[in-house]
């Protein structure tokens, strides 16, 4: 218990310190990092919600081993909503499309943007209520899942893709939603191991492998289409992520953490089917998710360092919250 409390204090302290460092070094330029942190964290409750809904719809016990953690994670959605509250006040600092008068934008007007985000959260919280109550006809769960797929895709486009108003990829939303599922599953596998190291993992490793490979496929296809068509408006988005040794190194790190290492590792039954190796692989996938979100957002920032500090700060605060919640629940819950 003592170690848990220490963990919470260290993570929270680190989070506050990093956030403060971001603000001190970059001022308002740290906001993109804050946004990226919030977006990376909200993926866990959203992905958990979608996995639980999908399992209820399709049937079968494939989330069984991690279902309690998924449910607990899904219940943190209101907490993630809190993270988004300051963002409407900083839209001008984050998005380059704000403040345009001519031509009057329709989709990218500030009021409509905020209204949409409110709408997304309303859909998700209603879906959460439906799922937590345990009731809900299969049709209702199916509708919730369909609504999540559409609203999640649009949210990804709104929050991250419009950081560069010229970039337009119809795959972006699907990638965003698929990333949620993988991140939530990895998180649940990791936490389940931390709470109950002996609990059998069932199909979780196989599911994680399938998810990681699917996202890698989608990521690669988006890149391949953009590379082959070579349209400047789209290509410059990737060019920016490959400009300079640091950017290339970071891109390679993201590819390794979210695709290469977990795919190779989880292909082995010795990793996929055993608790501890699976937990390590899941940890790498989760790290890959966080790095990937940073990779999507931070290159659009004016100064990368303050944004990166703020991103790390928010993620650290999220970790503190996660540890605190887990400590409050006994494994039997």
């Amino acid at each position, binding site marked *: 218990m003592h170690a848990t409390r220490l963990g919470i204090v260290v993570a929270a302290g680190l989070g506050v310190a990093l956030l403060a460092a971001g603000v001190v070094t970059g001022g308002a330029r740290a906001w993109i990092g804050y946004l990226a942190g919030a977006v990376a964290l909200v993926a866990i409750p959203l992905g958990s919600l979608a996995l639980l809904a999908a399992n209820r719809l399709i049937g079968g016990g494939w989330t069984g081993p991690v279902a309690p953690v998924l449910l607990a994670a899904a219940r943190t959605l209101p907490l993630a909503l809190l993270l988004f509250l300051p963002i409407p006040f900083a839209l001008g600092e984050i998005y380059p499309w704000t403040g345009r008068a001519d031509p009057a934008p329709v*989709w990218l007007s500030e009021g409509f943007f905020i209204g949409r985000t409110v709408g997304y959260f309303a859909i998700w919280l209603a879906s959460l209520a439906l799922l937590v109550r345990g009731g809900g006809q299969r049709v209702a769960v199916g509708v919730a899942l*369909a609504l999540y*797929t*559409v609203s999640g*895709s649009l949210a990804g*486009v709104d929050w991250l893709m419009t950081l560069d108003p010229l970039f*337009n*990829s*119809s*795959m*972006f*939303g*699907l990638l965003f939603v698929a990333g949620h599922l993988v991140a939530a599953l990895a998180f649940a596998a990791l936490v389940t191991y931390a709470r109950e190291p002996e609990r059998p993992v069932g199909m979780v490793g196989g599911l994680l492998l399938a998810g990681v*490979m699917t996202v890698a*496929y*989608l990521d690669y*296809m*988006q890149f*391949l*289409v*953009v590379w*082959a*068509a070579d*349209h400047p*408006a789209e290509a410059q988005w990737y060019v920016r992520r490959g400009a300079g040794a640091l950017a290339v190194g970071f891109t390679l790190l993201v590819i390794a953490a979210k695709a290469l290492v977990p795919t190779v590792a989880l292909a082995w039954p010795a990793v996929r089917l055993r608790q501890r190796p699976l937990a390590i692989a899941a940890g790498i996938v989760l790290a890959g998710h966080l790095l990937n979100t940073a990779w999507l957002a931070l290159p659009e920032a004016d100064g990368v360092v303050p944004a990166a500090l703020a991103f790390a700060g928010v993620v650290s605060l999220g970790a503190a919250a996660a540890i605190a919640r887990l400590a409050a629940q006994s494994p039997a819950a």
Partner: protein
Amino acid sequence: MMDAADRHALFEPLTRQIAEITLHRRIRVAWWLALLASAALTALFVVGIVWLFAEGVGIWGINIPVTWGLDIVNAVWWVGIAHAGTLISALVLLMRQTWRNALNRFAEAMTLFAVTIALIFPVIHLGRPEVFYWMLPIPNAAGVWPQFRSPLLWDVFAYLSYFLLSATFWYLGLMPDFATLRDRARARWQAWIYGRLALGWRGSAVAWARWRQTYLAVAACAFIVVSVHSAVAMLFASSLLPGWHSTIFPPMFVVGAVFSGLATVVILAAVLRWSFCLDNVITDEHFDILSRLMLGAGLFTGYTYGLALFHAWFGGDLHARHTVVLRLAGSLAWQTWLSVALSLGVLQALWWARVRRSPAGAALVGAAVVVGMWLERYAIITGGLARDFLPSAWRDYAPTLPEWLLQIGAFGLFCLLFVLFTRFVPLISIFEVKAEAAANGGERHG
């Protein structure tokens, strides 16, 4: 564990039921009629090809800007139909789902025949089909070398490797059943032929173990199925044409392919069950599962349509937005709405369990989906080319008689191959259905 007598009692009726169809059953008039009809349609295909080779592609309706017509529509559509066979047989095998066992044999046959037809179209659409091998990177004196950065070349590799993989997988799965046919054959010539085809299979434990390893290894290679239709999608997405260039195209094509393929499997399952009285093997439960998969694939396809349209509008590009308008309310709208009504509209009937579990109902929905997905390919391919950046160069496309001959003839060829398949190859995987029956304690087939 069951003893030998139990096993015999459990397995014998099933083995006899399936093997009889191939070995002993008197050939019915209906089968001859089906063979005759499909052979007549295949003759149209031959006529279409001879005509084409004699006159050249000028007899088709294609011209600048629409240089891809029914030839490429069919190459894309047929290879798409093939996808469900691979999904059902290989990927579901890896997920250790046993319901596939009644379906995989004819679904794989469907895959093989559909890929074969899909391979014919790109070759005959070349102005000079006799030099099709120039597409392969073969060292040669003329110094002809393919462009490795072109999706056209990726498609050559994708189609060919897909054909090889599905043929290998199908044959591997057939070996134990060929041995069963050999052992039960009454005529010597039948025993001789099926014995050769079984490659000396004796059913020893070692043979089974090796076979199992190989079968799973080939199944694991089936993930290339995803790359096949992705490479097809790259033909369009890698261009800059409004209505073609969209990053969602690879997954949209893959899911759409699986969607149309599942619809074809449902149709074939219904026809086979009715023709050969296989109610105890292809059950209502199978139709329920296939229908659910079809519904899921269809809804996901609809979602990808939504993404493609939204982002064409969202990007703000004048041409892309104009294409959206043309497709939804303009001169191309009839293609869009007819395709959506047939594929996604009729599909909604599958929300009702009664439709899902009825072979006739599911097959009717499947037929609408297959036609709808053909129209979708037609709309994307010809519609995209007909309306590019230069309005003064816009020109519509209408297929000519030689193209329709090939269209109908290809359908005939598929039917012909399938009719022959039902007669000479066990159309259900005997040993896998037996294994499933044994695992279930003989509840279903006893």
